[in-house]
């Protein structure tokens, strides 16, 4: 295992200390693994929090700040955080207008956030939750854990954060988050595995000429392993199930998000974006907004994911609204 760490046990703590050292003007760490916006709580503003395992940086800690998250709760690497963190965060960002929990659809995340929400409600805080489940690689079924929450989460956090910043109430913000979830679909793939620091070896082994299609963001094996293909072919394999699922239709305008899994250079992401733009054009779908980079990752995994969000004026306006966080900043 080759990593710039000291010990696996302290990796997340030291990471957060480094984030505070670098971005102390935007964030603070108020308890172990609870990253909070510097000026929290803001009276009368709905608090927006999210959380999940570490190893997906910049998600979620990098998205704490003006116009996005009020707090983030990173767990151990790839492990959902514990309810204590979400409770602490919920209390810290509650400005009297209630708190929204943006939860990715994983058994652990769901249960731990649910426990925290109950505890927070017992303390008199109005808590709502929206579950993001946008990964079309997973069959959507009532009899399984359902779809994973992946790239759509970042878009939801940005858009919902903008609305909360502008003063929307908890009901509005919750409905908006659900609207993002209803209009967003994603799918990912991996060229290489990642290595959980505490595990010390790659989560899975891939042959030199193999790739995993339909991978999650935790190094979970995908739906199929197959021979390595070209960027164009891979882009087709990811885009087609996404486009067919919602379905996205001719005349739609989308936010096209090509995401790197952590170990893939930007050059390759733009090559994928190039093909994606051709595919969208072929289907008569417009690219309203573009987003390319490593925004929801799996440690050092090489690979990419595609996320498409169907835009309307409201979502576009909120996407464009000013944001200032360690990882995402514009308009301010």
């Amino acid at each position, binding site marked *: 295992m080759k990593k710039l760490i000291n010990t696996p046990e302290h990796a997340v703590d030291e990471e957060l200390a480094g984030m505070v050292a670098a971005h102390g003007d935007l964030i603070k760490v108020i308890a172990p693994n609870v990253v909070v916006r510097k000026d929290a709580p803001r009276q009368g503003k709905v608090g927006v929090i999210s959380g999940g*395992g570490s190893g997906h940086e910049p998600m979620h800690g990098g998205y704490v700040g003006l116009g996005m998250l009020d707090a983030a709760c990173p*767990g*151990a*690497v*790839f*492990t*959902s*955080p*514990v*309810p*204590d963190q979400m409770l602490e965060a919920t209390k810290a960002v509650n400005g009297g207008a209630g708190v929204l929990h943006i939860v990715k659809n*994983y*058994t*652990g995340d769901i*249960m*731990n956030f649910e*426990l925290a929400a109950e505890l927070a409600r017992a303390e008199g805080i109005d808590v709502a939750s929206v579950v993001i489940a946008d*990964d079309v*690689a*997973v*069959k959507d079924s009532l*009899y*399984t*854990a359902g779809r*994973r929450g992946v790239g759509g989460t970042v878009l939801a956090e940005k858009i919902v954060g903008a609305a909360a910043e502008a003063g929307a109430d908890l009901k509005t913000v919750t409905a908006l988050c659900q609207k993002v979830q209803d209009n967003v679909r994603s799918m990912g793939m991996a060229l290489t595995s990642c290595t*959980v620091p*505490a*595990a010390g070896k790659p*989560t*899975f082994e891939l042959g030199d000429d193999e790739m995993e299609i339909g991978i*999650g963001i*935790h*190094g*979970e*094996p995908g*739906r199929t392993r197959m021979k390595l293909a070209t960027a164009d072919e891979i882009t087709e394999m990811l885009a087609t199930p996404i486009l067919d699922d919602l379905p996205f239709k001719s005349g739609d305008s989308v936010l096209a998000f090509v995401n790197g899994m952590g170990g893939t250079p930007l050059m390759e992401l733009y090559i994928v974006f190039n093909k994606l733009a051709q595919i969208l054009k072929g289907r008569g779908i417009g690219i309203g907004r573009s987003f390319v980079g490593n925004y929801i990752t799996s440690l050092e995994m090489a690979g990419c994911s595609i996320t498409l969000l169907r835009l309307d004026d409201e979502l576009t306006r909120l996407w464009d609204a000013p944001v200032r966080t360690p990882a995402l900043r514009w308009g301010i």
Partner: protein
Amino acid sequence: MNGAAVISYDDVVAWITAFAASVRDQKDYLTALDSAIGDADHGINMDRGFQAAVPKLAGLPNRDIGAALKSVGMTLVSTVGGASGPLYGTFFLQMGAATAGREAISLDELVAGIDAGIAGIQRLGKAEPGDKTMLDALLPARDALREAAASGASLGDALARTVGAAEQGMVATTPLVARKGRASYLGERSAGHQDPGATSSYLLLKAAADAWSGATAAS
């Protein structure tokens, strides 16, 4: 019926301690199982939780089995995270609630405690038998324990049958296609791998059998 107190407070502490040691021992194995169909953290998660839980037992004010189990449950919920944190946490919290205030329990009470714990896991995780989860080891183990207790078996005998059932249940998860938890994302590809949570559950019952082979209250 098995109404005589056979498991003491010290036995319960010994059980938790033995399981913590077993988890530490099998940490890499549990993580490797989770690599195949999950996210390579189950051993790490369980170890983090039990390394935190054991020291807290020493500081408890009185010899209350229920309080000890609740302490374990609270610590698991607060330190493990993931799916296994709330699930195992609930198991111990509910088992603790069922044994609150007791300094020693009978075999029947053990059955009731474990049953309450499992019910908690089911309420929270909503899994069914055959979904390829920890329940596939726990449910048959509970049934075996209950039958053994009902048939008047000794503690040692009852635990031996329980562990046997848990082991069978664990092994039987291998061909299953997961319908709950992270392994369910794999669909058909989840078949052919033993479930990590079922494996840790088997180890949990094995730890009881090992720790209680010379159970203090029984002697």
